[in-house]
């Protein structure tokens, strides 16, 4: 699964959610969805804006983590 490490990068840059939402032009609600890993997809434009504001690479924000639960289920099958 893809994990969004937005909170980590934000903490490194010492930037709050309100400030980021104003600079990226996203609502706080949408940014919270993204930060809490509830989002199903992310637009390139959003990623571009976040990377520009936080001065980072997409890889700093997005991370692929192997799901262990699914692996266990596959073994059971």
């Amino acid at each position: 699964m893809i994990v969004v490490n937005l909170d980590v990068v934000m903490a490194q840059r010492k930037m709050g959610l309100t400030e980021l939402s104003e600079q990226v032009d996203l609502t706080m609600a949408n940014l919270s969805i993204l930060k809490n890993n509830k989002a199903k997809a992310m637009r390139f434009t959003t990623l571009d804006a976040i990377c520009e504001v936080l001065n980072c690479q997409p890889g700093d924000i997005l991370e692929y983590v192997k799901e262990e639960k699914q692996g266990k289920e596959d073994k059971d099958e």
Partner: protein
Amino acid sequence: MSRNPLVRITKLLLDFMFYFGILICLTVPFIFKVIGRYYTIFEEFYLPFCIIFMVSGVFALLLLWELRKIFKTVMLENPFLVENVVSLQRMGICSFVISICMIFRLVFIITPAELLLVGVFLIAGLFSIVLSLVFDRAVSYKEENDLTI
């Protein structure tokens, strides 16, 4: 809240139909007694007609109740909800039950209007079920769109 007058008028019409329907449904035995004076068939099959019409009346009211619930969400401009999918499925079932009630009535009297009613409610039920499937897809698309940042 929707400002579309058509939606508001339809909602008012549904409200009127629902409350008037309750009144009609409750007074079916009395109405059939009166009608029985002019049409002998209602006097002859008074009890079965009362039962058939009251049962179909109750299901028609349930159908209207679900439709009102859907319209409330339309007025709030948020109709793509799982609740509406369930409502459409229930409306379909109600239509089928009404259709079955009308088929039972055919045992006592066969008229073109009766046959038409059976067909109309059968098709309405099918449409409602198909619409619920379409709505289900729309709900999942909306959810995906809402969660695309």
